[in-house]
């Protein structure tokens, strides 16, 4: 087991390096000159060359990359072009805010998705199954920013029971665990949870229905086990597949949603990226994307390891 985990951890290193190269190149791939935002209007060729040199853009790309990587590894992501503050200081609070929102959405989405999926999987082919599938497809298909606005109109504007935007009393810096803050979390979390709930409901349904067709389920009933105990077996068999889907959804949610965070003015990574894009603040964009990509890698690693806990056959391959 320890060897397996170590091997998986080692596998992530080349992936992380690849991701960092892509992030680094973003600045060069992005249309327009990365320095256009800092360049004074009508600067002379000499000044342009001077600024290029100051930022290190006159060096060959591999050298630039290694220098950049050296900084990144020590936590130096550079300076934001708009705020002139260190990128890390901007990105970390945004990541924390997104995590609060994402974990709440995960809780809503995974629980709803699993419950619906299990009901549909156990009643595969019935009217209930079709109703659940219809709900799940609708959930996946509805544009979530639209749903967000509709929820705001209903609960904030018309009923006035929940705040429309913002993070509540604590403000963007520190989320307070009081009722006012939690209230402001409800609408964005529900909005964000609808798509993962739909996706998970559908994959749980498919996996459960598939596992229940296996012959060993007949053996379990023939052994005289009650349905509740058979359910434990079915769930353990379904777990690796469902975990993989959940991991992807979780990583996606941690990436923050540009649209939903913008609709609810939630100061997370999505919101940060949105403003960085409009301000052409490439260091912020780069730092955020790199941080989120690392989250993806870590979550995938955790899912891989968790899967082996449920299915002994995975370890061998």
């Amino acid at each position, binding site marked *: 087991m320890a060897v397996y985990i170590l091997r998986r951890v080692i596998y992530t290193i080349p992936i992380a390096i690849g991701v960092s190269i892509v992030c680094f190149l973003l600045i060069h791939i992005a249309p327009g000159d990365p320095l256009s935002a800092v360049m004074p209007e009508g600067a002379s060729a000499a000044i342009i060359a001077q600024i290029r040199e100051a930022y290190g853009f006159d060096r060959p790309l591999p050298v630039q990359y290694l220098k950049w990587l050296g900084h990144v590894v020590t936590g130096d992501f550079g300076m934001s072009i708009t705020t002139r503050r260190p990128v890390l200081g901007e990105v970390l609070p945004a990541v924390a805010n997104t995590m609060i929102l994402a974990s709440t959405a995960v809780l809503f989405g995974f629980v709803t998705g699993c419950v619906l999926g299990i009901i549909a999987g156990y009643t595969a082919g019935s009217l209930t199954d079709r109703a659940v599938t219809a709900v799940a497809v609708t959930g996946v298909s509805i544009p979530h920013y639209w749903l967000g606005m509709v929820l705001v109109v209903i609960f904030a504007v018309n009923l006035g029971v929940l705040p429309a935007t913002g993070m509540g009393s604590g403000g963007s810096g520190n989320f307070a665990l009081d009722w006012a803050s939690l209230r402001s979390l409800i609408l964005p979390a529900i909005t964000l949870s609808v798509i993962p709930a739909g996706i998970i409901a559908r994959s749980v349904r498919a996996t459960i229905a598939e596992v229940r067709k296996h012959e060993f389920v007949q053996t379990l009933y023939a052994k005289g*086990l009650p349905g509740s105990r058979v359910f434990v*077996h079915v769930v353990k068999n379904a777990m690796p597949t469902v975990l993989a889907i959940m991991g992807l959804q979780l990583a996606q949610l941690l990436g923050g949603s540009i649209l939903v965070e913008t609709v609810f003015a939630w100061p997370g990574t999505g919101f940060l990226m949105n403003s960085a894009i409009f301000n052409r603040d490439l260091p912020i964009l780069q730092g955020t994307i790199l941080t989120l990509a690392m989250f993806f890698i870590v979550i995938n690693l955790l899912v891989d390891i968790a899967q082996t806990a449920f299915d002994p056959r995975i370890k061998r391959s």
Partner: protein
Amino acid sequence: MTEAAQKSLVQVEHLKVRFVSRDMDVSVVNDVSFNLERGEALCLLGESGSGKTVTLRSLIRLFPRTARIGGRIHIDGIDVLNLPERRLRQVRGSLVSMIFQEPMTALDPVFTVGEQIAETIVYHEDVSQADAMKRALELMELVQVPSAKRRLNAYPHELSGGLRQRAMIALALACRPKLLLADEPTTALDATVQIQILLLLRELQRELQMATIFVTHDLGVACEVADRIAVMYAGRFVETGTAVDVMTSPSHPYTEGLLHSTVHAGRRGQRLDPIPGSPPDLTDLPAGCAFSPRCTYVQDICLAAPPEFRTRRQDHWVRCVRQPELANSEAPSLANGP
């Protein structure tokens, strides 16, 4: 009902099974009756779709919700078909247990063999997990699994086909059943392993005084393990008798056909005669004898109504109108081979 029949371990009377759904209604088992004594081995023989597996599963009501069962089944005095779900679970795996065809798919891949055996014991008998594991080890030794202790902690995919089927048998024997149901227990195995498993099953059956019902389409298996044989066709018993009687003097044209289309040493050098035609469509059975479209001896009377059972000799029954005629001519058989 006679006194003798009341003492039988299993009594099945007029068993009928239909599968009903919105777009179909198929009678899979039509009026099957038989008794099984304690410690006796019965073999249900027939092609796929003849209703043998469904008959077997009826004994523990292991069916999808679309099944409709009629008739009466008593096992050890228990009225199985009218048993509430809770009591039925106590019967399954304890009084009656079952072995499946494909040991790879019939064991849960994500639990160890030992856990799966112990689970049954814990559920049926109020014992601790540790004691159940101890029993599981004894069972693995009983079914002659080498290095049983190590195999107990193995997952099904870590075992060979033969060992898996042995583990499956150990699982079935976990609570000392009085009746063992075996659904083609050797079909998925290599020929050499098949023999080992059959010998093991026969040995265990005698040692533990356990009545057994085998389902197979393999005449060799039937000869090897059965005291009695029941040949099934289109959801009916068409011939029943002791294994020796059915094999040496098959009296239904279908049984005869099965013997003629099987490879065995007694017929070396002769052509195999397959039964002409294909198994019947259960949704569209002929009005008369279901075998009539494939039967070479078919007469007008066969097409009118399904024939009743006729006695060939004591304990040997045949559903065929030609019975009196056949009784006088000695049919070709295994024993009479050149």
